[in-house]
């Protein structure tokens, strides 16, 4: 049951994506409400990541992809009346593989936001501390902020990327299987951070781990690939889908994951 009083932040209406003439995702529609964690779940190859890249228009870059259907954010279509840069500031994306820019931890955290805002020394430090705390990385790096970021562990690097996205204060957060290659401790930290983040932001999490989906998300959108094309199978709250799956694809998936 969606909490009724919260407003619709993002709605995806019959989005289809095809590479040349060969479809990847077919006719997917779902809504994202404010202060909610929505999980896109399904076996790999069901177009989850492609769909995510449509939401912050990274898909525009790959010339061979063409996207039909519409996505509206706060009532306005993201393809027409949004400057692409403002859109990406508003909708943050955390990639699966952490990508650290050369330079110190501090420089990495502020890498995105310093292109959007003019921050003096004090504001920058304050902002960095704020987002590093939100990403549960502050205690592990607070005394070596000026050291090179490349010495961090994989889990720490991913949380640093998470902090970097948070620094621009996006309203919506997209995460593309953020913990798939991380150690349990980092995975737990990120999941904790996501739950805290729910108070102020709306989050779409892509994962193929059922356990993570159950632990973290409010609602689940289950995607699966039929004849090689990703389709929306079912969507609903965690309890509805897990306890009484309606479609056989979801049933087979639940059995294989458990």
């Amino acid at each position: 049951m969606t909490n009724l009083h919260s407003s619709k932040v993002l709605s995806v209406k019959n989005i289809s994506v095809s590479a040349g003439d060969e479809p990847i995702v077919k006719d997917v529609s779902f809504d994202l409400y404010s202060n909610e964690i929505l999980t896109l779940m399904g076996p790999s190859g069901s177009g989850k990541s492609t769909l995510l890249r449509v939401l912050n228009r990274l898909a525009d870059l790959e010339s061979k992809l063409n996207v039909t259907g519409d996505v509206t954010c706060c009532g306005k279509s993201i393809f027409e009346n949004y400057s692409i840069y403002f859109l990406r500031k508003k909708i943050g994306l955390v990639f699966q593989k952490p990508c650290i820019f050369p330079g110190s931890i501090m420089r990495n955290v502020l890498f995105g936001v310093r292109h959007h805002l003019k921050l003096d020394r004090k504001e920058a430090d304050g902002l960095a501390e704020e987002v590093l705390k939100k990403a549960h990385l502050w205690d592990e790096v607070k005394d070596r902020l000026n050291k090179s970021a490349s010495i961090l562990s994989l889990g720490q690097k991913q949380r640093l990327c998470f902090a970097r996205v948070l620094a621009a204060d996006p309203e919506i957060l997209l995460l593309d299987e953020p913990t798939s290659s991380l150690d349990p401790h980092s995975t737990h930290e990120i999941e904790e951070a996501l739950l805290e983040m729910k108070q102020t932001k709306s989050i779409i999490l892509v994962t193929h781990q059922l356990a993570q989906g159950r632990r973290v998300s409010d609602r689940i959108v289950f995607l699966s690939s039929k004849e090689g094309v990703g389709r929306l199978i079912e969507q609903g709250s965690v309890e509805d889908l897990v306890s009484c799956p309606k479609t056989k694809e979801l049933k087979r998936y639940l059995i294989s994951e458990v």
Partner: protein
Amino acid sequence: MGILVFVSSKAILSKPTFPFSVTGAFSLIFTLVSLLFFCGMALFLLIQGSPIFFQEQLSFITDADWFYRINQYGAASMIYGTILVSFLAIVLSLPFALGSAILTSEFLPNSIRVYVKSFIELLAGIPSVVYGLLGVLFLRPLIFKWFAPFSPESGDTLLTASVILAVMILPTVMSLSEDALRGVSKEHREVALSLGLTRLETFVHGVLPRAIPGIIAAVLLGLGRALGETIAVYLVIGRADNRLSDSLFSLKPLFEAGQTITSKLGGSELYIAYGEPTHWSAMIGLGLILFVFVGVIVAMGEAVNWLGRKYQHG
């Protein structure tokens, strides 16, 4: 909420100050400056160099005698000089360049290899006028003494010019060939050696086939540089016009003074030619011929690279 509320209310920078990207504009301007210059140069060579071809047709290339005082222009002896000197330079430098490239890439341990390689790259950077100095002071008397039985006209001969060019392009050809040889991964060598092949067979069958395109590209680059070299050749070639030997393969011209296109262009005849339309056009015509030579060499280099890439994956 602390800093974050404050942050989101700050003036958002992402709105651009100019309607178009300034960097893009400047990059375009600078690219245009470069393109304009080089098109201007190509046009200059074509427009100013072509009248001589119309006036003399092919005899400008086939005729050997160049007497500008009676407006008779024949570039054959210079073309012959340029080709002979450049190819002889490659022939003289190749065995040594390849030999030392093989030595450093196949046999030398890494510690020594780094020193030899950086020393050779240093030599590649030595200006050509310094090679000219060495040529004039040491090579010229040497050639005059050693080849006395062939009764060389003087120390300044086509042979001297070829040797100077060979020494000049040796470092470049060697370091590029060595890069080509090092480009072949160590596995190839280990696999071949483990199959019981000798070092020679490993090199010939394991390493060489994959390195050939790189080596050919290195040779072509060396040839391009030899063709274009002016100052060192000007100092040691003797600058005698109209020296075209009757038979192409006789050794005699090697021991006589001669002239290449670059040594003619580098001389003071340019000052005399300016103002005389036909004479000037003949000089620029020489430049055009040189430009075509170099264009062919570069095209061959590109073709070799392209073929190399195609068969590398094939």
